[in-house]
């Protein structure tokens, strides 16, 4: 604990564990506010579908056991926590007897492969664009700024719908949805990869353009602040070359943008999930969309849990990176050594 960097990490970790715990508790308690016995509701729904009564009783027994609805609430809660730690997320209603873990496990790689590159590349390009347009000023700045303002305020899914309509339906340049062509099996063959990339471009572009816009606006603002600050004037008067000053400005303006990266993981999530369902991309977003339509509570809860974990982990990683990069935190560390 002597090392301040370790202390910084430890402190952050505690906060994240607390946030996770609260999120998990919400995940447990909120769906239980639904009036009535959810198991009975589901079994009734299936009964109208013409399932034989023996199977229904078995179904009822399974869900009663899984939810533990016959036990007091606090016992249910501890069971829920234990199941999460064992990574047992229960059984899906709509795809009975499919396990929620399995469904999410299949969807998650697609979501990660789509979102992480989109967010990261949007962040990098947006920051470069914002810094450059703050430095350049004039016509370039006003055009870039207006475009960024327009793009960052179009919700992802709106851009996604427009892209899907124009580039896949109207002009059939890209496929109309899915993660790969219908009828192919995901393998590591060359053909499959090309096919998957072909399906990837539209969802990726609709997310990345919006992300670039949002980051560029933030970075431009930070850079203008820095460019008008005293140290820049001083450096200019000393006759230091512009390229060198730009490097200082960039590094200073970047720092808040790293926090911005952490924020964007959380705030982009909702839009990104809907974007997936616009393209029927086989990720968590499309799964959630179907789960909500079918009122499949275990699957909805599984999706919200995995989204929470993903965002918390991403945020934590960014905070660690921030600890490494921020000279103030690093300086304390070096100073005490």
């Amino acid at each position, binding site marked *: 604990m002597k090392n301040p960097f370790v202390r910084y990490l430890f402190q952050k970790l505690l*906060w*994240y564990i*607390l*946030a996770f715990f*609260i*999120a998990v508790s*919400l*995940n447990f308690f*909120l*769906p*239980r*506010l*639904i*009036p009535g016995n959810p198991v009975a509701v589901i079994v009734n729904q299936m009964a109208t579908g013409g399932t034989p009564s023996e199977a229904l009783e078995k179904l009822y027994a399974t869900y009663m056991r899984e939810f533990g609805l016959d036990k007091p609430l606090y016992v249910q809660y501890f069971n829920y926590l234990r199941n999460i730690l064992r990574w047992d997320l229960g059984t899906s209603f709509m795809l009975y007897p499919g396990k929620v873990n399995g469904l999410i496990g299949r969807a998650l790689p697609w979501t990660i492969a789509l979102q992480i590159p989109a967010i990261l590349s949007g962040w990098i390009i947006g920051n470069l664009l914002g810094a450059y347009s703050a430095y350049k*000023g004039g016509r370039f700045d006003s055009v870039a700024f207006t475009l960024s*303002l*327009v793009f*960052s*305020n*179009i*919700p992802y*899914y*709106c851009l996604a*719908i*427009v892209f*899907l*309509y124009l580039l896949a*339906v*109207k002009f059939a340049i890209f496929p*109309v*949805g899915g993660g790969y062509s219908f009828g192919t099996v995901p393998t590591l063959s060359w053909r499959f990869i090309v096919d998957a990339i072909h399906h990837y471009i539209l969802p990726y572009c609709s997310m990345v353009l919006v992300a670039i816009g949002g980051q560029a*606006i933030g970075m431009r*603002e930070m850079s*203008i*602040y820095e460019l*008008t600050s005293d140290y820049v004037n001083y450096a200019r008067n000393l006759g230091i070359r512009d390229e060198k000053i730009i490097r200082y400005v960039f590094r200073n303006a970047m720092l808040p943008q790293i926090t911005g990266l952490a924020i964007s993981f*959380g*705030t982009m*999530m*909702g*839009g990104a*999930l*809907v974007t997936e*369902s*616009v393209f029927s991309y086989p990720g968590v977003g499309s799964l*959630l*969309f179907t789960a*909500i*339509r079918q*009122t499949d*509570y275990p699957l*909805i*809860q599984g999706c*919200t849990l995995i*989204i*929470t974990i993903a*965002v*918390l982990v991403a*945020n934590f990683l960014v905070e660690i990176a921030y600890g490494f990069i921020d000279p103030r935190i690093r300086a304390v560390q070096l100073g005490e050594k």
Partner: protein
Amino acid sequence: MKDIFILLFRSKRFIVGFVLFLAVLSFAIIGPMLNPKNPFQMVGGLFTPPSDKFILGTDNLGRDVFTQLMYGTRTSLLIGCTAGVIATSIGVTIGSIAGYKGGIVEEILMGITNVFITIPSIVVLILLSIAIKTRSAAVMGLVIGVTSWPWTARAVRAQTASLKTREHIDIARITGFSSIEMIVLEILPYMFSYIFMAFILQFSGGILNEATLSMLGLGPYQTVSLGVMLHWSLLWEAVRTGAWWAFIPPVICLSMTTFSLMSMNSSMDEVFNPRLRRS
């Protein structure tokens, strides 16, 4: 105050945002008054393209898209505004108390705030929405409002903490003002522009959150909103069948609304924050 308006209306971006917003607002308020029809009524064949009879055609159930668009925009604005008012009120209350009181009160309030900033709000929104079966537009606004205040709280705390060191605060404190009087009379008036900008941000965020939830299928119950229209388009494959009139109008309305709010916000930022202005 007058100077501020002169400065604001000198900014081209503000005028563009303001005019666009007025256009959307009057469409949503005056439209349904001049044209009181039921947006759920089936009036024509399914997916009829735009014609003289139906300016924007009909949707998958033969309902008039133009009527839906008017009522939908109204619902979306209503939800966004409700959410904005609630989120801003909670955020300002928590932020100003934390910033003014300091110490353990600040630690606790900001701890709560930071935890709720870390938990993705879309998750809480989804969970709350599935827990409330019959969601009216007002309930949706409330739900969105109570989940999106943390950013405002954090920003207001920072502002309050810096205002607290000003001299007039010390003088007021000597006069024996209570904490609440101090916050309401001596701190909040000095950050009015800031609070108003925070409200605009929350307003636009509320509209977007409504659209996101509705598109996932958790929209207001038996009400049409822009998000609900988009949800129907997804559900009934309007995009893939090429029925552009069913989804392009709500997309435009939604983007126009958020764009107008955000451009007003960013030009106000420039006016109130002279360092961002460059001439």
